[in-house]
C-alpha cells in the first residue's frame, strides 16, 4: 500500500512537471527575429521561386464537368456522290473529366501526371438515315478523347523557371469499350522559359506543338500571370490557348472573363466505312473552336470548388483531311472537306478538387 502511494506521487509529480500551457504563448517583440543566421546543416537548401503567384486561381486536381452547346448548324462539304448540305444540330453535349496528381512536389521540382476524358455528342434535328455520312457518323458515334499528360515545373533559382509539358490524346469516334486506333493518337507538348520578378507577376516564352487549331502546329507561346497591387484583379494567360481577366471577390469566390482556343484532331474510322469507297484510310476531323466566356468559380466546401461558365462557341475549323499534314502557312495541301459549324451559346458546369 505504501509502495502504491509512493508510485502514485512519483507519477503525479512527473506529470506535473511535464504539463505546460495548452496554447501557444503570446509574443513579444517581433523585430528581434530580423537579424538571424542560418544554422549549419549537411543538407544544402537553395532558394527557388514557387510555381504560383499571389491571387492566382486554384489549380484543379480533379475535375468532373458537363458541357452543353445550344442549337447550331453543320455545313458539310460535298464529297464524291454525297452533296454538301446544311443540317441543324439541336445541341451538343458531353462530359469532361480530368485528374492531375502531383507525384513530386517540393521546392526544387513539381511533377504533375494527369489523365483526362471528354466526349462530345451531336443531336441532329432531322433523322440521320440517308444523310451526309459526316452527319451520320457524328450523330451515331460522337467524338471522344482519352488523354495522358505530364507537366514539369523546374525552378532554376528565385527568379527563373522552366515548364515542360507533354500530352498524348487518343481522339476519335470510338466507343467507350473500344481500344482507340493508333491513328487517333495525337502528341502535343510545350516548353516555356519563365521569369518571376516578384510574387504578383510571372511570365514566360516558349514553343508548343499543339492541335488546338485542329491540326498540328508549331507555334510560340506566351505565359503571363499577374495580380494587381490591390490583389482584387489580375490576368491569367497562356497565349494563344487561353486568356482570362480575373476578379477576386474574396479568396473563395472568383470571376473570370476571357476566352479559350479549344480543339484537337479526331480519327474518324466509322466515316470511312460509311463512305465505303476504299479511297480514304486516315480520315481526320480537324475540330477547333474559340470560346469567349464568363466564369464564376467558388468554394463549395473547403477544397471542393464549383465552376459555372457561360459563353459563345465560335467555329474556327471543322475540316477533314485524309492523312496527316503540317500546314505552316496557308491551306496547302487542300482539305478533303471544308466544313463549318455555326456559332452558338454554351454553358459548362464542373465540380473540382483544387490544389493547396
Amino acid at each position: 500500500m505504501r509502495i502504491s502511494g509512493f508510485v502514485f506521487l512519483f507519477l503525479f509529480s512527473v506529470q506535473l512537471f511535464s504539463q505546460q500551457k495548452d496554447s501557444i504563448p503570446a509574443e513579444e517583440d517581433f523585430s528581434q527575429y530580423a537579424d538571424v543566421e542560418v544554422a549549419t546543416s549537411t543538407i544544402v537548401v537553395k532558394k527557388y521561386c514557387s510555381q504560383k503567384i499571389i491571387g492566382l486561381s486554384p489549380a484543379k486536381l480533379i475535375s468532373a464537368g458537363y458541357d452543353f452547346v445550344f442549337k447550331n448548324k453543320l455545313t458539310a462539304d460535298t464529297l464524291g456522290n454525297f452533296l454538301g448540305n446544311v443540317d441543324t444540330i439541336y445541341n451538343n453535349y458531353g462530359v469532361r473529366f480530368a485528374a492531375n496528381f502531383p507525384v513530386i512536389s517540393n521546392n526544387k521540382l513539381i511533377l504533375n501526371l494527369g489523365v483526362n476524358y471528354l466526349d462530345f455528342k451531336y443531336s441532329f434535328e432531322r433523322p440521320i438515315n440517308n444523310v451526309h455520312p459526316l452527319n451520320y457518323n457524328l450523330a451515331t458515334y460522337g467524338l471522344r478523347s482519352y488523354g495522358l499528360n505530364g507537366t514539369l515545373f523546374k525552378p532554376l533559382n528565385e527568379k527563373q523557371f522552366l515548364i515542360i509539358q507533354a500530352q498524348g490524346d487518343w481522339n476519335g469516334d470510338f466507343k467507350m469499350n473500344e481500344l482507340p486506333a493508333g491513328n487517333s493518337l495525337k502528341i502535343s507538348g510545350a516548353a516555356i522559359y519563365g521569369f518571376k520578378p516578384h510574387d504578383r507577376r510571372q511570365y514566360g516564352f516558349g514553343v508548343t506543338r499543339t492541335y488546338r487549331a485542329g491540326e498540328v502546329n508549331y507555334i510560340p507561346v506566351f505565359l503571363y500571370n499577374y495580380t494587381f497591387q490591390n490583389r482584387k484583379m489580375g490576368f491569367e494567360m497562356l497565349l494563344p490557348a487561353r486568356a482570362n481577366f480575373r476578379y477576386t471577390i474574396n479568396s473563395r469566390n472568383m470571376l473570370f472573363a476571357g476566352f479559350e482556343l479549344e480543339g484537337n484532331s479526331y480519327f474518324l474510322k466509322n466515316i470511312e466505312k460509311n463512305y465505303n469507297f476504299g479511297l480514304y484510310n486516315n480520315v481526320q476531323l480537324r475540330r477547333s473552336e474559340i470560346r469567349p466566356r464568363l466564369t464564376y468559380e467558388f468554394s463549395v466546401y473547403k477544397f471542393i470548388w464549383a465552376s459555372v461558365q457561360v459563353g459563345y462557341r465560335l467555329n474556327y475549323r471543322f475540316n477533314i483531311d485524309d492523312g496527316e499534314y503540317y500546314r505552316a502557312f496557308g491551306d496547302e495541301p487542300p482539305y478533303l472537306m471544308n466544313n463549318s459549324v455555326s456559332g452558338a451559346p454554351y454553358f459548362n458546369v464542373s465540380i473540382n478538387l483544387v490544389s493547396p
Partner: protein
Amino acid sequence: MKKITLLFSLLLILFTSKAQTTEEADKIIGLWEVGSGKARIKITKYGDKFGGKIVWLKEPNYEDGTKKVDKNNPDESKRTNPTLGLNNLLGFSYKEKGEYSGGTIYDPENGSTYNCVITLEDDNTLKVRGYIGVQLFGRTDTWKRVILKAK
C-alpha cells in the same frame, strides 16, 4: 526490498526513455525560415503538442504601407488580425524517427488550412508537407533553422 528495487529500476527505465523521447521530440523547437525565405516561423511546445507562429515576414506591409492582416481567413472576425504573430502550425505530435503529424498548416495567402506532416531531416532542416486528405495531393517545402545573432 527486492520488489522495491525492481520497481525503481522499471520506473527509472520508463522515466529515462520518456526523457529521451521528449529530448528527441523537442529538437523541432526553434526558429525556422520557409523555403522561399519570405517568412520565419517560431515553433514551440504547448501542452504535449507542437505549434508555430509567423514571427517575421520579408514584406510585412502591403504596398500602401499598411501592415499585412489575415484578410483571407474564412472566419470574418479574424480578418483584421495581423499576419505577424499568426499561429499557422497547430496540433503536431511527435511520432517517431523525426516525424511530427496530426497537425495543420494555415496559409494566410489564401485562407486555407491543410493537413500537414513535418519531418526533421537533420537537426537544422525540416520537410513540411501540406496536403488535402491524402499526402499525394500536397506540396513539400524545406525549412532551414535560423539562429538569432548575438547582440
